[in-house]
């Protein structure tokens, strides 16, 4: 093999590894085919990894559009894919028109300010008070879920490590975990809202109360998978590795950070992945009830609205929620691949 083709093939291997690392395995056959590997095999692989999913999505869309029109509700027939797509475009267009309005507002304010200053009057800046667009709602939801997820992880990982290290701790926490784990976010939310109103009483709040309530509810529901998986990961550290730590007389902190932590990392990440998924699911319900601006509130407002577009708008939200949830999961897999020593499965 010449050095030229060798460097070519290592470049290809690197490309394939990068794609796999980013969770985009489905493009690997395309790379292989483009670089001249047996096309028949790669085509079959490609047909399975891309063709079959496309086909199943197509079947789903056909069934949906054919069945939707036949269902009549009080606010018109159930929208098909085309109506939902139109509505999605309308929401995007609305976002941009709202942004232009906002920009125009600030331009007007700027000229007004100059006039005020020229006339020697005091100027008080005003904020644009237009309604949040669909993208604003998504952004708020993402912020809320990450805030909740962060709180949950900060609580769950240390407690999980303690539970995994000490059977006594495990016995202490186990009943609490068992009892609180199955509780629905809808049950937590009223408690959290009352507590937040009582305890979070700053004059100049950094966050909205509704934001705090939703975030805390998300963390209360999403900390369990991380906690359970962390403690399992820590408890199942290879005894040989612990023996190494004993022989080296590693101090407790080194033992936790250098031996136990890295070895439990794959399971900790499995827990975090599950937690983020649960958190995203819970968030919509929490936002609906807490009236925190976000996708949940959007769904609720549309429902209250009861117009002919309600169903399409809610369906756009459903797909948005689903796609973002999927993207978050991918993100966690990629993170896991970067930090942990064993390649995570992309299930």
């Amino acid at each position: 093999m010449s050095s030229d083709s060798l460097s070519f093939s290592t470049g290809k291997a690197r490309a394939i590894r990068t794609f796999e690392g980013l969770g985009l395995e489905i493009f690997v056959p395309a790379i292989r085919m483009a670089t001249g590997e047996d096309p028949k095999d790669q085509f079959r692989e490609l047909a399975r990894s891309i063709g079959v999913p496309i086909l199943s999505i197509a079947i789903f869309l056909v069934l949906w559009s054919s069945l939707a029109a036949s269902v009549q509700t009080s606010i018109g027939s159930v929208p098909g894919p085309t109506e939902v797509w139109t509505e999605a475009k309308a929401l995007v267009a609305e976002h941009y028109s709202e942004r232009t309005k906002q920009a125009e507002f600030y331009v007007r304010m700027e000229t007004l300010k100059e006039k005020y200053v020229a006339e020697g009057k005091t100027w008080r800046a005003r904020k644009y008070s237009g309604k949040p667009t669909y993208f604003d709602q998504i952004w708020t939801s993402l912020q809320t879920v990450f805030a909740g997820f962060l709180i949950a992880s900060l609580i769950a990982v240390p407690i999980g490590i303690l539970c995994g290290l000490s059977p006594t701790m495990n016995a202490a926490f186990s009943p609490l975990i068992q009892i609180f784990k199955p509780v629905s976010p809808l049950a937590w939310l009223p408690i959290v809202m009352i507590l937040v109103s009582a305890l979070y009483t700053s004059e100049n709040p950094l966050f909205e109360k509704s934001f705090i309530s939703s975030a805390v509810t998300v963390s209360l529901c999403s900390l369990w998978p991380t906690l359970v998986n962390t403690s399992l990961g820590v408890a199942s550290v290879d005894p040989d590795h612990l023996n190494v730590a004993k022989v080296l007389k590693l101090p407790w902190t080194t033992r936790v950070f250098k031996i136990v932590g890295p070895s439990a990392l794959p399971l900790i990440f499995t827990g975090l992945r599950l937690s983020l998924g649960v958190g995203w699911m819970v968030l919509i319900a929490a936002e609906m009830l807490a009236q925190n601006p976000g996708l949940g509130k959007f769904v609720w407002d549309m429902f209250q609205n009861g117009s002919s577009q309600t169903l399409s708008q809610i369906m756009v939200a459903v797909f948005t929620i689903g796609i973002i949830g999927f993207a978050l999961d991918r993100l966690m897999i990629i993170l896991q691949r970067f930090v942990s020593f064993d390649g995570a499965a992309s299930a």
Partner: protein
Amino acid sequence: MSVASATLTTEERPYLRLDHVSKSFGEGPNRTEVLSEIDLTVNQGEFLAIVGFSGSGKSTLINLIAGLLQANEGTIELDGQPITGPGPDRGIVFQSYALLPWLTVQGNVQLAVDAVFKKESAQERAKRAERYVEMVGLGEAAWKYPKELSGGMRQRVSVARALAMDPKILLLDEPLSALDALTRATLQSEIESIWAASKKTVVMITNDVDEAILLADRIIPLRPGPRASLGPHFDVPLARPRDRAAVNDDPEFKKIRNEITQYLIAVSRQTASTGSKRRLKKPDVKPIDLRPPSLPSAR
């Protein structure tokens, strides 16, 4: 001349000494005594091999010396100090390598160096780790992860890590038993040269009599457990370095191998005829059979 229990010259103070050491697991009726009344002395700089069948309590013995297990009775002393727990003065090479998969070759050795030589500067410690990685011939692979290495290379890392602690004694727990025959042969000669260069006291556990004869100054068979105890000492007076190919035809080598093998076979027969007291509980399952019960079974 080879069965020589009193080879210790009196002016040599034993470096490692096990005195009436017994170890049992479990309580009450489930109590199994694995090792019974072990007396053992090892001199400084000596290479001692303990050979025995699998399951005879060899690993328990090495774990007792390492301090990972505590003896029920008896005392273990190293260099005049009683052993109460694990410590870096006894470098151990585990059968399963026990390398940390998230650390590189250098990282694995560095972990040991950092833990033992806390007073040295970071630079000195890195140098030290590097030196041991080079010593086992892995300089080129220093930045590879264990999963990228072959079994033989992994075991070398494990040896480098144990040596990097600069231990008083090196404990090898069946270090080569998971390797293929060819890798095994190479590593055997490497272990011999490392031992010769480092002048460490070594206790090696093995199930391979040839390996023991090739490497050790003295061989002690372990009578199979339960209640395993040490057999007579066999001295290996072969000249070093021992060449694997040449030594095979050495009459002395053949004689020692014969004696040890004979001894091991004899004690294993003895144990088999006396019968082990430990009975395995068999599961109470009946085979699923579609035949009606009236018909005699084919068996």
